[in-house]
């Protein structure tokens, strides 16, 4: 046993030395690769055989594996049966070669089989006429390959961690799109965000290629083509969002403002918590705070006849006064349809804002609809009936000086259409 392990060590040492020589001769980079894949010359073949002979002290059979494109096929597994005895598995070294140590009897017949998925099936028998065998050269025919590249978007944003399942020639490749990463130069690199690359091996150019994309929150998407239809470019795929949210939007933060066509303007921040009462998830409670800006137009009558004058330069202009009222208070929202709908989720509710200037509560009913832009951000349009009181300054014309003013407590009742942005999680 000690003797055998010593021999194995020597074999490894020789192989290692051989590799180091190749690297030393060729330097780094492509030249190394070129040297690596070059077919060995007769001198190299003989040198390999002689080195083995020196170690094992007997004649060995060396086998080389090449592709039909004159490339060495390294590290490929072969099943070898010598004289129809047990099938042994051999793996070529990084120079595409291995050796067989014969027994006491000369080898007459060797059966080679290669079922590597990257090559067409090799099943050949080599007959040896004498025991001074020449090296055996096995020629493997590579299968067709394509380097498939895809980039997956949601809208215009590339998305990472999209599962892709590529099915071609009976094989399945699973992959995921890449995210950003810190590269070797310590830069945050998003060059390959949303992309993946997969080498696909196929038998015939007309074989079908099916790519399935899936990610939580998005609709599955499938691309099908023939292998020879792929032109090598990056396939861009846009995923659509799912029809329904994949999570229950328990926490909802909103920001809304009135459309600028009204004479009153509401700006509010809100929070709503969607309650889960058993399977019933259509009630949300929360609060809302903000301000209402109301513009009140007043016309101040001055001297008699001035308003009736035909000369527009005498007409006193109306004046707009803006009043801002802050409020904060609770609100209850009831969903009229499934709140998980991404599109046109309808809701109604009522808020009870406390107006800080008047120190009063008021009730503001509202109804609205919401549409999600992506996974958790939505736009909503809401009609809200607001009512509150305001201390309005009223002026009286004074022919002997500045107008005098007094305050009138005025009720404001308006229907406002608000547009808002919602973030859910």
């Amino acid at each position, binding site marked *: 046993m000690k003797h055998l392990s010593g021999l194995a060590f020597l074999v490894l040492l020789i192989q290692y030395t051989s590799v180091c020589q190749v690297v030393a001769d060729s330097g780094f980079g492509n030249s190394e690769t070129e040297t690596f894949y070059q077919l060995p010359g007769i001198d190299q073949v003989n040198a390999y055989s002689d080195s083995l002979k020196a170690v094992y002290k007997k004649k060995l059979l060396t086998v080389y594996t090449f592709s039909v494109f004159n490339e060495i096929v390294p590290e490929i597994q072969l099943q070898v049966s010598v004289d129809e005895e047990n099938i042994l598995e051999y793996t070529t070294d990084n120079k595409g070669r291995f050796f067989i140590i014969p027994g006491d009897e000369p080898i007459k017949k060797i059966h080679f089989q290669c079922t590597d998925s990257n090559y067409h099936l090799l099943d050949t028998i080599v007959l040896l006429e004498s025991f001074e065998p020449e090296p055996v050269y096995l020629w493997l025919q590579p299968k067709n390959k394509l380097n498939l590249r895809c980039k997956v978007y949601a809208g215009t944003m590339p998305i990472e961690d999209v599962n892709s399942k590529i099915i071609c020639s009976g094989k399945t490749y699973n992959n995921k799109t890449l995210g950003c990463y810190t590269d070797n130069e310590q830069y945050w690199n998003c060059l390959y965000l949303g992309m993946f690359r997969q080498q696909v091996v196929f038998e015939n150019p007309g074989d079908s290629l099916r790519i399935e994309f899936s990610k939580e929150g998005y609709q599955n998407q499938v691309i099908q083509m023939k292998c020879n239809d792929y032109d090598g470019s990056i396939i861009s795929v846009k995923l659509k969002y799912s029809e329904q949210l994949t999570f229950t939007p328990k926490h909802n933060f909103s920001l809304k403002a009135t459309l600028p066509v009204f004479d009153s303007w509401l700006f509010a921040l809100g929070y709503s918590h969607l309650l889960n009462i058993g399977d019933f998830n259509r009630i949300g409670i929360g609060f809302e705070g903000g301000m209402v800006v109301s513009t009140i137009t007043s016309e101040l009558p*001055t001297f008699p006849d001035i308003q009736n004058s035909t000369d527009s330069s005498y007409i006193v202009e109306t004046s707009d*006064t803006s009043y801002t009222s802050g409020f904060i208070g609770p609100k209850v929202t009831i969903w009229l349809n499934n709140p998980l709908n991404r599109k046109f989720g309808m809701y109604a509710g009522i808020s009870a804002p406390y107006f800080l200037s008047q120190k009063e509560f008021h009730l503001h009913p509202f109804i609205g609809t919401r549409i999600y832009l992506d996974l958790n951000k939505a736009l909503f349009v809401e009609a809200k009936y607001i009512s509150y009181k305001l201390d309005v300054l009223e002026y009286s014309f004074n022919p002997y000086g500045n107008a005098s003013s007094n305050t009138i407590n005025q009720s404001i009742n308006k229907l406002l259409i608000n547009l808002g942005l919602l973030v859910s999680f």
Partner: protein
Amino acid sequence: MFMGFSCNQPEEITVYDEHLIFPHSFEITVEDYSFDDKSDGNKYFVIADSIADTLGTEPCFRWVNKLNGVNTIAISNEPLVVENYEIVNKASIIWQWHTGMVKNNKDTTASFIEFSEGRQVFNKKILYETQPLPLQNGLYFWAVWKWDKTGKRIIASTEQYSFVVDK
């Protein structure tokens, strides 16, 4: 953010000229001028200074500013006193004209008002229906002031000038 407040309140004018009848306003300039008094046919001269001019019983008034906006001229029988942006002794005004009395065919750039275009004031009320009576002999004061386009505050005024009527 949540406190109630209102915007667009009348802002105080930062200018100050103690010679103007409304010191916190811009100046309406009065230049020297002359006019023919229709009541007696005499020609009178108004010198825009602090010395009282002698005028007829139906004086005319002229100032530089255009007539756009709401303007008023008042004749009083004692110096008008302004406190807190308002005339205190309103009852001393005996004659007044304002923009609402402009005839439709009048050139609005003229800023020249005849006595007959204004109306007599009695007990702080303008008597629109009657022609003004000619002034009696005595010392009178006159001034022009003007409101902003909303009519809320006075933005310009003249100095207070005096004249004597002596038939």
